[in-house]
């Protein structure tokens, strides 16, 4: 089996479901994982970094695109005009 076939095998709904399962597992295990040397309040809350990751991702995409469309993005020949 060559590389391309392996990649094609990975692009199925079954793998997608497995990935969602993994995400749930990540949060569940976070309830029992041993913590040490806590400096940051978020480190005490189970699942904090999951939520942080999701929100960060959404924030970065939405805010950046908003600023971009409002102001920063220009045509490619912008500086030649």
């Amino acid at each position, binding site marked *: 089996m060559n*590389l*391309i076939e392996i*990649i094609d095998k990975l*692009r199925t709904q079954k793998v997608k479901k497995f990935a969602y399962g*993994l*995400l749930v597992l*990540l*949060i569940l*295990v*976070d309830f029992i*994982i*041993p*913590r*040490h040397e806590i*400096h*940051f309040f978020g*480190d005490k809350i189970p*699942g904090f*970094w*999951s*939520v*942080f*990751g*999701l929100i*960060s*991702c*959404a*924030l*970065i*995409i*939405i*805010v*950046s*695109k908003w*600023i*971009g469309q409002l*102001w*920063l*993005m*220009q*045509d*490619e020949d*912008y*500086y030649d005009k």
Partner: protein
Amino acid sequence: MISEIFNIEFFHPSAYYIIGGLLIPLLKGRIKQGFMLLLTLLAFFAVVNMPLGVYGIYEFLNWELTFGHVDKLSKVFAYIFTIMGVIGVIYSIHVKNDGEHLAAFYYIGGSLGVTFAGDFLTLFLFWEIMAFSSVFLVWYRKIPSSVDSGFRYLLWHVLGGLILFSGIMIQYSVSGDLSIQYLPFHGWWPTDLQSLATFLILIGFIINAAVPPLGAWLPDAYPAATVTGAVFMSAFTTKTAVYALIRVCAGSEILIVLGVVMAIYGVVYAVLENDVRRLLAYHIISQVGYMVAGVGLGTQMAINGVVAHAFCHILYKSLLFMGTGSVLYATGTAKLSELGGLYKTMPRTMIYTIIGGLAISAFPLFSGFVSKSMTLAAFSEEHYMWAFMCLMLASAGTFLHTGLKVPYFIWFGKDRGIKAKEPPWNMELAMIIGSLFCIGLGIFYKPLYALLPYPVHFEPYTAYHTWETLQLLLFTQLGFFLLLKKLWCANTISMDTDWFPRKGAKVFMWFINKPLASLEYNVIGECYEFIIQKPILRVASWFKWVDTVIVDRIFSEIANLTLMWSRKLQAIQSGQIQHYAMIMVAGVLTVIFIGIILP
């Protein structure tokens, strides 16, 4: 190697690049390729065999120039620069243009020179060699936009060099000492001459570290460089600046703020970017932000983290530039809006690029994880929670773009049926070596930690820390797929802080061509004519009148008079001797007569 043969302790690795490199144009074919590779390996082993200490001191005028200041900090940077030299030269060994090889060799030699410089003058010398050699890596792309980008790149670096040099001169006048010292800058602006010197040196360094608003040259020039040139550029300039900042400015609080701003700034621009190599360039800014912030914090742990991060960053970022460079090489474009579906034709390049993406995203078992986490832990330990949160946010952004967006839109996304094939063997070999480093350092991190300037009391693979990172990254991935529709790219560019000089230059040229030129032509020109030109003409015409009417007439009248008298005299010139005798006798008689009469 040479140091052993000649029994000298220290042999400067730059010599291999700067002096050895001169022979490249004289050689041909396989011999040339072998020679280039040999030089890079010799330089690496020169660093391996290098004992700590101070070497290569030369007297120049009244100054003492130190070319070989070797301590743990300079050595670890020299290690990564020479390793990168080997990888970069393998990647670019097929390039036919000797000029491009020479530019890369001088660029690497320059960065090694900066690394071992013991005084500011030597540092400045190699600093400028870097700027003036690397610009050729942009120009050799030989398309008009690259020529323009190259000039802008050079202008930024000349500006930075001048600011750095003025700082060095003030430092010299204040302290009378040119040796590189620890000069942290405290506060926000200079208050006395010493802090002005430090401030200017800091500005000179942060221009090369691409700190906004002075860093727009980086995303401008790197994507404009040649396929292989960008690989070198991604490694050396900013990391040399980080090294200089550690050496001179560690613990300058202003750098924490600048670094955190940088880390997020790069991520924001990366969302908007369509050109893959420019997207990666913005991620250099973001990653260097971690380093700059860590330098600003300045604790031993933070500095260790910064050095480790610079080490890993050079490897994974060059790997990413090699992967996307291969795509550009194979397809002729680096625009996400024109790419897609390449996994069928370039699957191996995809694997290498994803490894680079996972490493930069600090995925467990990849190199970024063991380095970035140390810097982050230093912030958390010092209770800089706002900085810690912002840097974690930037981490999510890094994975979002480099780990997900870049691979997705190049290799998957919309299949555009582009005909492409895997790059030549040497490019692939370089990517394999880079990938092995990215995974190897993530697993066997102890040798890297042993190279760091301070003793390391940090363990990256604790259960919680690994779990925290996995949560952050995998939920970012969820967010990516949920918001995928928003991420499609169009053919756009984004205005950066170089808008001010670029549009400013346009306004300046318009001012010169329109108002200033018409002012000169219509007002100053007219004034000149009325106040200077016309009076002068009048005076001149008066002189001309005096000349023709008076002076010339006097002469012509004298001439006429002479002519008249000559004619009269002609009458007595008969040519017969008796007439002359008569006249002579008459004359003598007249004289005698006068002599008798007059008394």
